[in-house]
């Protein structure tokens, strides 16, 4: 269902599923997978459009994944179901109807591995779920201006592939994180903190975040369009970042 509905069943996830294995000294396991639609863009209003994976990511004991492609949706779901810990499996509405190759048979996409969606030299666009195609579209636009953009699809928010983030930062020196969620205490801030804490020497400009504003998701189409991140907003952030280089 919608990740917004976590509100009505949060104790079983927060205080039980996410903590039992630790609290009981590793003598039990909780192999639970929760499927939850995330994100805005379908005019489902403020209670059916949130991107609350930042909350689940912040709770030790819960894992959170968010595929952007049909291939990863199948592979991550199988990995999540077979994992011995509770996994929140996010299904972003913005990529829900994406078509793509899906291999027959059994395969897993390991939890905790980001995907390098596109190689580039000048700037790293880091996305998750619905912002991954936005980053790819932004990379196409930037290529016309002679800017070579790398696109990293996080895929897994907890565990987080910190090595992949630091590797792309080391390569380009510029990081723009695009996230559908609100800006406070979220994945975009988390990635920015990682870059500053452990990749400061590589940074050639401040990390930029492209997120929703700190506000509930509006219903009206015009307001919702203005609320969401977009390829155009990512391109604008890259341009502003290049003007702010040291």
């Amino acid at each position, binding site marked *: 269902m919608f990740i917004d509905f976590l509100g009505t069943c949060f104790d079983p996830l927060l205080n039980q599923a996410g903590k039992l294995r630790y609290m009981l000294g590793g003598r039990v396991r909780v192999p639970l997978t929760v499927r939850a639609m995330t994100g805005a863009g379908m*005019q489902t209003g403020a209670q059916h459009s949130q991107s609350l994976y930042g909350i689940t990511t912040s709770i030790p004991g819960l894992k959170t994944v968010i595929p952007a492609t049909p291939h990863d949706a199948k592979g991550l779901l199988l990995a999540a179901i077979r994992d011995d810990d509770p996994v929140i499996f996010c299904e972003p509405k913005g990529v829900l109807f994406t078509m793509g190759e899906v291999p027959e048979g059994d395969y897993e996409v390991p939890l905790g591995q980001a995907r390098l969606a596109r190689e580039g030299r000048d700037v790293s666009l880091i996305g998750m779920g619905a912002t991954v195609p936005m980053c790819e579209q932004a990379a196409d636009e930037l290529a016309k201006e002679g800017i070579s953009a790398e696109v990293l699809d996080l895929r897994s928010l907890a565990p987080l592939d910190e090595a992949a983030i630091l590797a792309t930062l080391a390569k380009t020196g510029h990081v723009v994180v695009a996230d559908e969620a609100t800006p406070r205490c979220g994945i975009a801030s988390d990635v920015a903190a990682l870059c500053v804490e452990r990749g400061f020497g590589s940074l050639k400009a401040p990390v930029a975040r492209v997120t929703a504003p700190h506000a509930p998701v509006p219903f009206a189409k015009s307001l919702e369009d203005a609320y969401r991140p977009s390829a155009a907003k990512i391109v604008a952030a890259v341009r502003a970042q290049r003007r702010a280089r040291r």
Partner: protein
Amino acid sequence: MRTIRAYELEIERLCATGRLSGFPHLSAGQEAVAVGVCLLLRDGDLVVSSHRGHGHCIAKGLDLTAMTAELFGRATGYSRGKGGSLHIADPDRGMLGTNGIVGAGVPIATGAALST
């Protein structure tokens, strides 16, 4: 009851033809519940509705034009277009709101009852 049925059938038609987006939940077939309860209410009584709340709003006397404007996300809607079908409220008329979360109205109604 006839107004509610006609309204819901028209909303269904607008959705089916793509003129109205979003996911309105209709209350056709539940008209008698809304009308039966609201007939017994006094003006100052409060109503907390659900995700199928158009009928409750109409039975409580809300304005159809402002309701419809809300469904279309217009600034002239009851919630200025920010809420949509699931968030229609008119506190002046004692309608405390439709609601997108099933069951969420119970504690709101309890609080409203305690406060009056």
